[in-house]
Every structure is written in C-alpha cells, then in structure tokens.
C-alpha cells in the first residue's frame, strides 16, 4: 500500500505547499497505533506514515491511513470543524490537511508536519532520558501547561451558546452512565457522591465553547496536534460537552498517562495536591493552578475544581471502557484500574468536604527521585538498599516490586486518614 500512496504523492505533491529537497524520492517511516493490538474493529485507529525527502532530517509530509469503518463524510465534517477553528484562532491549531484520497479501500489523509517534539517526547526526556533532572521537568511542565492554557483561553473566548449554562446535570448523567458501563455498583459510586459533584459544578455557570476532540496529550504532535483527532461524531461532541472540559481532560490525561504517572503513581492525589498547593511547594502546583486561572476558574474553590476533575475522569474512563470493550485481554485490567481511580476520586471528594489540608510530602518525595538523576524505575536510596541487603538476594526483586507497588498509595492513604 505504501508504494501506491507514494505514487499518489508524487503525482500531487507539486500542488501542495510542501518543501522537500527531492520531492520525487520520498522514504517512509511507518508508525502503527499500539492500542490497535488488542482492539480490533475500533473506528478511530490510524496508521501514520512520515515521509522523508532524501537526506532530510525531518519528515516533510504525513499521511494517515484511516480505518475502513470511517466514512468520507465524517472526515469531511471533521475537516470543516478543524478549518473553522483554525480560522477563528488565527493560526493552524490543527495541522493543515492538503488532500484526501481513497486508496485500496482506505481513506488516506495527507497532512502538514509540525516540526516540534511532542509533549510526550519532551516529558520522556525530562523524566527518563539521560538529560533528566527535576529542574528540566519543572521547566517542561510549566511551559506545556502555559501553552495549553493560552489555547484554552482562546477557545473560551469563542462561545457557541448565548448565555452561560449550568453543567451539573450533564456531569451527573455522565457519572451514572460510567457507573452503568463499568458495572460498579451504587455502593462504590453512590448517588450522593454524584449529587455533590452536580451541585458543585452548577455553582459555576459556564458558556458552551468548542471542544477539542482528542486530548490524549502525550501524543504525536505538541498540544492538540494529534494523530487521531478525526472522529465520526465531532458535531455531537461539540453540542453536548462544555468547553471547559478541555482543561480538565487535558490535566487528567496528562497525569494518568506515562511518563508523568511513573513519577506520581497516585496521580489523583498528586493532582489534588497541585490544585491546593498555594505556596508552590511542588513542581506541579504552579502550572496546574496557573492553567485554571488562565481559563477563569478559581483554584481555591477546590470542591468545584475537583467536581470537574471527577467529571473529566468519568469521561475518560467511560471512553476507555468503550475502547477496550471488545478486547478480552485488556478489559479486566482496565476495570480494576478504574475501580481504584473511582475510589480515590470519592475519597478525595470526602476529604475536601472535611476542610482538612492535603499534605504535599508524598508528592515532593515522588518528584525528588529525579534529583538523584536516576530514572524513576531505578530510584532507590542507600538506606533502602542497606535494609534490602538483610534479605537473601533471591527475595530482593520481589521486595522492591512490592515496595514500589504499595508505598506511594500507602503513604498517601495514611495522610488522608490522619488528616494532616
């Protein structure tokens, strides 16, 4: 298929605004979405081909092989939406699509390349690369949150409804839908929890503004320049969601995805610490509070902010459950993980209500692993190594594993229980 796409490019490249050193000799680098492995027949999956001119150090063009189930009409609707948003923003928020072609039964998009590292790549380098350091990570997080805050602020300034609306009912229904989809009972996520979330969200009426379809932040292009942003129901999504969900979906996905989740294993606790970190004791406090201020939300109203975090997390979990629904290999693990997250959301909601403060120490300890310049998977101080040496060597790997699995959660639970 690549050779047919290549031929198509050679025939059309002169009509596209693409700079290539030798436009008749393009070479492909193929990227497949790894989520595709265990999720057959999901319509949003794409394969991406980066095209390089001879000797070029950066790709000149990207083509995306869309899944066969995505119809041309849906794609055209998405493109209209993206172009409209680009026009309103005054700069290409979404990469420009030069052409669409149907090749061997698949729809292929031809897009421009954004010559920047992705958010995910920047984070990986700052956390796991040879150049890792706490200061580096702090810089990266601050800049990325600042960039996204600017974007969301611009989107907030484009209301699509006349007057602000209360979004509590929407969030309440989302929570109920998630509970039904996941099969988690009311004992686990009660109506009282949802009601509390509803009331908190209703206390801040917000206008409807454009929604960014796919906010899985650590992705191929920086910010919203994503590979899988073509979705069949873009209009429906825009009609149903409050624009402010952009901010919370961004924060939630940012924190639960690796590599950030490898530093802050109890990511929901890290997020609430960041939201309540007025004094900037952690590296994540100032960026998180900053992005909330940028879109006009008051970070100190932690109950309201947490209600939006809950809604965004329900949205993400419901989305993932749909995604992995037909994957017998993934669905069990995902449900287990989401049960933990839901539990944590509710625990933190209760704790906020008790007016006690969140201790930042577990988050500070977690981020301090980067001071040693060891990647998170290896960080282990000398004291712990000395204790380990008391055990026979064959037991040590299992002990380290147990420690890494339970320590972050255990320590934050202690803080929540003691109410320090």
């Amino acid at each position: 298929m690549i050779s047919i796409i290549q031929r198509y490019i050679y025939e059309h490249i002169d009509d596209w605004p693409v700079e290539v050193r030798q436009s008749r000799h393009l070479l492909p680098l193929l990227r497949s979405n790894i989520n595709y492995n265990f999720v057959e027949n999901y319509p949003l999956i794409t394969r991406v081909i980066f095209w390089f001119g001879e000797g070029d150090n950066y790709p000149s063009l990207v083509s995306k092989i869309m899944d066969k189930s995505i119809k041309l009409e849906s794609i055209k609707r998405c493109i209209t939406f993206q172009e409209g948003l680009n026009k309103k923003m005054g700069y290409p928020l979404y990469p420009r699509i030069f052409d669409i072609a149907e090749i061997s039964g698949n729809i292929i998009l031809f897009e421009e390349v954004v010559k920047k590292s992705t958010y995910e790549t920047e984070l990986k380098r700052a956390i796991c690369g040879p150049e890792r350091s706490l200061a580096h990570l702090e810089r990266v997080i601050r800049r990325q949150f600042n960039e996204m805050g600017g974007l969301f602020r611009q989107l907030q300034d484009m209301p699509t409804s006349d007057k602000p609306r209360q979004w509590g009912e929407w969030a309440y229904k989302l929570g109920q839908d998630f509970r039904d989809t996941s099969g988690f009972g009311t004992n686990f996520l009660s109506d009282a929890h949802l009601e509390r979330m509803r009331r908190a969200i209703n206390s801040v009426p917000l206008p409807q503004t454009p929604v960014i379809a796919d906010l899985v932040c650590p992705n191929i292009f920086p910010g919203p320049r994503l590979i899988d942003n073509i979705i069949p129901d873009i209009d429906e999504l825009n009609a149903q969601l409050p624009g402010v969900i952009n901010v919370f979906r961004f924060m939630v996905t940012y924190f639960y995805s690796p590599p950030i989740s490898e530093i802050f294993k109890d990511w929901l606790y890290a997020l609430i610490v960041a939201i309540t970190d007025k004094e900037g004791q952690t590296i994540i406090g100032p960026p998180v509070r900053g992005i909330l201020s940028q879109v006009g939300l008051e970070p100190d109203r932690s109950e309201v902010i947490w209600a939006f975090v809950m809604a965004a997390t329900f949205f993400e979990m419901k989305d993932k459950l749909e995604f992995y629904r037909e994957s017998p290999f993934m669905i069990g693990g995902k449900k287990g993980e989401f049960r933990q997250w839901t539990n944590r959301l509710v625990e933190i909601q209760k704790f906020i209500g008790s007016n006690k403060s969140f201790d930042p120490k577990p988050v500070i300890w977690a981020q301090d692993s980067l001071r040693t310049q060891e990647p998170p998977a290896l960080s282990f101080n000398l004291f712990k190594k000395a204790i380990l040496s008391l055990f026979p060597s064959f037991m040590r790997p299992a002990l380290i594993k147990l420690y890494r699995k339970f320590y972050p959660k255990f320590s934050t639970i202690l803080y929540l229980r003691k109410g320090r």
Partner: protein
Amino acid sequence: MTGAGIIYQCPWCKGSIDRGKDYWRCQGCGHAFEVRRGVPILDIGVKQKAEHQPLWAKSPSSGSITVDDPDKFLDEVEQKGWRVALGNLWGASSTALMRTVAANRVAWKYLLDINNSWKALDIGAGTGGVACQLAKECSVVALEKSWCDAAFMHLRAQQENLPSFQAIVADATSLPFEPNQFDLATMVGALEWVPFGWPEKPPREMQLQALREVCRILKPGGSFFLGIENGLYFGYFLGLPEVHTNIQFISLMDKKQAEILSQDLRGRPYLELTHSKDEYIELFKEAGFDEIQPFWLYPDYAFIHYIIPLDRPNIIKYFIAEHLDPRDTEPSLYRFYRFLDPSVVSNHIQFFGFLAQRPKGK
C-alpha cells in the same frame, strides 16, 4: 478451507499429489501423507519423539503449544473457542497469547500492495498470529512443523470464518509446493528454528536451504518478509542472555566457541543461529533474492509500533530523537541509541525485518 488454487508436490520426490480425505498420496513415489484433523502432514524432517511436540517447542521463547494430550486440547478449542482454550493454557493476559492476536504483528503488510488475489505462505506460522490476520486479505497457507499448532490454526481459521486458509505440517527446507506460485512468503520468528529439524547438519546451510525453497515457490517479483532477531544486538554485549538459548554472549562468539559453550551448558548443539544485518543480507543474496531492504522493527516483531528503514541514517536519527521511548529500553541501551552514530546503531538493534524480492526475470 483449501488454500485456494495452490498446487502441492511431494516433498520426497517432487511428484504430483492426489488429495484424499484421510490421506494425500504422491503419484510419483506412492508415499501416503496422513491428514489428521483436517491438516495434511507433509513433513520430511527428523521425526521427534512425539510428533506434535518437536524439540524447539520446549524452548520458552518458541510460542508453540506444548501439551501432553493434543487431542484433548484441540477438543477444548472446538468446544470453548480458540481464545478461551489458549487463555486457559497460557494465561488470559499472557504475553504469548497477546502475541497471537496482536494486530500490529502484520503492520509490515503496508509495505506491500496485498489484495485478495494474492497467495501467501506463512512459514513457521505457530498459532496463526501472522497467518490468520493475513487470511483476512488474501489466500494463505500456514506451514508449521508442529502438528498440534497446525491443527489449532485450522480450528482458529474455521472459527474466524477464513475460507481461503490451509494449515499444513511440513518442513521449511523442503516445501511441498510447485514452483512460482506465491505472491508473498513470510517467516516471522521462524528462520532461527529451521535447523532444529536437521540437528546433524550445519545450521546456516539449513537456513540457506529454507530461503532457497522460499525463492523457488515465489512467483518472479514475489515478496518475502523475514522478521528475526539480531545476533549482534547491543544488549548481548552488555550481558543480556541471548533470547533463544538463554545463554549470555553466545551469538557474539565464534561459531566453534558457541558450539562448545552450548554443549557445556545444555548438552546439545547450538542450532538456533542468528546473524548480523550484513550476514542476513548475504544469506538472502546466496538464496537468490534481490532488492533486499532491511528495517528496524520497534519495539519487536510481535508488537510492531514503528517500521524504520535501516539504510537511511537520517530517518534512524529522527526516530531515535523524537520517538524512541526510554521506558521501553534499558537505560544503558537507550544511551547507546541516543549518543551513537545512526549507522552504528543500525547494526546493533534488536529486531530486524527484511523485505526481499525474487528477481523478476528469473
């Protein structure tokens, strides 16, 4: 399920074959080949103690089904479905099972222009990770040395409703097909196991023989995809055990030294031979292929995320800078990749993919 339009020949005398229900019979030498559970057994390799459990199936990295009672297992596959039965055997979320279903295992198909008129042969098909997915797009013959694996694939293809699929038991060094028939042949994680059928013969010779056979059965201009480990992988220099033998440094050694080490540690010869990039290319050339393109299959050939052309240092450099994930790689290996010249890196990556063509004029 017939493997539409494929002409078989006797692996012993190359005579034509009459296909019966229970036996396939050679018109030339009269040899009868049993058809067991819908799978013809056309193997001429060394008979193992138990035909359904060849020697390499004992290796943890082979991905082959190892059961005491294959018929009982296959009954379970029939009754409960292949996913459930394999899940019960290997564990519902085991890597081996995921390898069997991973859609990205055939991500390299985009390098080709496959259509439904194509005939493909998957050699060393295992449990059908590649063959059953290819069969959604073209006719496929899945060749396995292990009868149990082949019978499993036969049932899997029935359950997945793949009409143009035929599983057979045969040896890669003597393919039971008339020449010039296939548009595509694949060997993913299989070439290194070929010498196990012939433990007394030089392993490289048997690998070369298998490649010659592939070249013979391909149509002129037909494509061959090989997915295989690199014998000169960086990790092996750092002391990671070689994946097939679980022995440190063995693939880096002189062949005589490696043989002695294998005998010393395991009491059996070193057959699961892997090579360097240039040695593989040399093998291809000797077997009669041309237009050989090497690729880096990252992170591995079962769960392909990226396919990177290895003959372009600029693309390797871009991939390492922008896409290589430090979390997937040992920190020391990641540093090698980041700081070494891409042309050096291209010789020491872990998994190769080679796309080669049978010359059009031959």
